[in-house]
């Protein structure tokens, strides 16, 4: 298995095509990062393991429906640490990409991840997750088999898992499909990775009414991990080799490994009760709001119907009860993110 990984690593050695220098204009520079994050030759979980792991044994199956190859999971020995690994995997070629649904997990992938994380908890193994998920698979079967339930359950499990969790955003961190394997005690990121609540194309098509404004949306969402670090969503950014991670898997992996081992040393020394409470606090405190004094502006709650003569309130409410047309309803801006 390790051999295979190493081969994969070699398959994806630096390409002759050098990456362009990031332009000066902030929007263009930011968009250039998005392109680097999406580079097809960027290392994924198995490529990283090929560089940083001395041992890896993959485990398969969700014990319910199937085995989703968009998510790889198993046990690895990294330095002196035995850990459980969960990460996304794209293909090195089209055939493999189809097998791995282009790295977009189905519910089975998240259910496999949960099974391995629970096993890690029982075995006292820290969990390391590699996140490069453009989004959960958006197909009908994905919805039929409960993609939202799987994401919610996995996020919930990770908030309470009684073992250290190190999450590394290595490429695209897209929406709930990424967060489902990205709730950690510490969130690391590679320099050119991105993290956002919705794809810039999706955001642009909803808020700007055209996907062409994706670079504008990407900048507005501050999706570069350097911006995310400033916001506290990402804890540490790991510098990539010049030209980007895809140009040197080995060097990228070694830089990542150094930070990962340091964090594993640190986290495994923390008592579990403290660790899990700190993790809860970390996510409990993310997000910004203000708190005003004074009475609630909320209108009085009308009594339940059947009790008579409160026409005024009823009329007011009546106005509010008019839904958008079914057509418009699907994407009333600014209502929703997509995968």
């Amino acid at each position: 298995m390790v051999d295979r990984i190493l081969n994969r690593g070699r398959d994806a050695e630096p390409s002759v095509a050098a990456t362009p220098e990031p332009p000066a204009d902030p929007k263009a520079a930011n968009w250039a990062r998005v392109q680097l994050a999406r580079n097809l030759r960027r290392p994924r979980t198995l490529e990283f393991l090929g560089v940083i792991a001395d041992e890896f044994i993959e485990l398969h199956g969700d014990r319910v429906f199937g085995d989703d190859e968009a998510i790889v999971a198993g046990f690895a020995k990294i330095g002196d640490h035995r850990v459980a690994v969960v990460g996304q995997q794209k293909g090195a070629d089209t055939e493999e990409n189809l097998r791995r649904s282009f790295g977009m997990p189905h519910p089975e992938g998240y259910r496999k991840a949960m099974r391995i994380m629970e096993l890690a908890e029982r075995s006292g193994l820290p969990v390391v997750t590699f996140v490069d998920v453009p989004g959960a698979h958006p197909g009908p079967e994905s919805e039929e088999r409960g993609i939202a339930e799987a994401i919610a359950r996995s996020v919930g499990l990770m908030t309470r898992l009684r073992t250290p969790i190190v999450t590394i955003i290595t490429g695209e961190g897209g929406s709930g499909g990424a967060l489902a394997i990205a709730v950690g005690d510490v969130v690391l990121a590679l320099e050119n990775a991105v993290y956002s609540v919705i794809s810039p194309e999706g955001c642009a098509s909803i808020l700007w009414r055209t996907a062409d404004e994706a670079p504008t949306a990407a900048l507005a969402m501050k999706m570069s991990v350097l911006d995310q670090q400033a916001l506290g969503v990402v804890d540490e950014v790991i510098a990539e080799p010049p030209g980007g991670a895809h140009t040197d898997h080995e060097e990228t992996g070694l830089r990542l490994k150094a930070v990962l081992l340091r964090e594993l040393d640190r986290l495994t020394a923390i008592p579990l009760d403290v660790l899990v409470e700190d993790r809860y606090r970390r996510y409990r405190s993310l997000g910004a709001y203000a708190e005003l004094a004074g009475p609630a502006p909320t209108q009085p709650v009308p009594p339940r119907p059947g009790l008579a003569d409160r026409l005024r309130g009823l009329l007011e409410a009546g106005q509010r009860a008019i839904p958008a047309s079914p057509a418009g309803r699907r994407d009333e801006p600014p209502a929703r993110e997509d995968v």
Partner: protein
Amino acid sequence: MPMKFPTFRSRQAGTAEKMWTRCPSCEEQLFNKQLEKAMYVCPTCGHHFRLAAPVRLGQLIDDGSWEEHDPGLVSVDPLGFVDQKAYPDRVAAAQVATGLRDAAIWGTGRIEGQPLAIVVMDFAFMGGSMGAVVGEKVARAAETALEERLPLVIVSASGGARMQEGTFALMQLAKTMGALERLREARVPYISIMSDPTTGGTFASYAAMGDVNLAEPNALIGFAGARVGAGTIGQELPPGFQRAEFLFHHGFVDRVVARPDLRREVAQLLRFLVPSEPVHG
């Protein structure tokens, strides 16, 4: 950076004379007074209209039992987000239009005499989108429910996470699920009620995870936008895709409940879910 406090105008201003509403499903013209008496369910075709949060509360909880908590929570603009409109302007407009400070309100009340903590979302406020305020209210509701061992009910009506708050909005999935997991471990029951629509990150967090999941008939419930689902994958969508009955058929909704039965069923479920005496662990 707290926002300037908006001045609230009555929702009826300039509309007081409008007495009729057209059903988007059967096109029937309905007298608002009659519609309200019918709990905003079309008497002709059964279409369930979307509800303002106060109206939803009025339909569910005992008269006079409502006490709102944390009414002062308001959104700020952490990213300085501007699309065709500045985020603060969108919020202010929504506040004026709805009389709410954000897309959810939470508080304590009673249903058929049984105390509970309840969160109600309002789709009219920026599509019921979940930002830090909605996430904070859900988390505080869950934490209060745990402390006081009150059952929790959340009525969802939301298009998902609020893009204008970027990953902060996404992080609300972890914030709310963390609080709900603690509630579950403490064996305090939670009932999720999904109304039209419950999609995206809202469905992919607390809405999907009730001890019991209820949904209103024909409510749109799903994760990915149908355009995405069909578009990017180019598959044909199954009939009734992402409707309440579809979710029921696939095992993610316990009961599809018509609005007139909702209060009674929630009360009945609470009588079973709330341990009479503390469960000896």
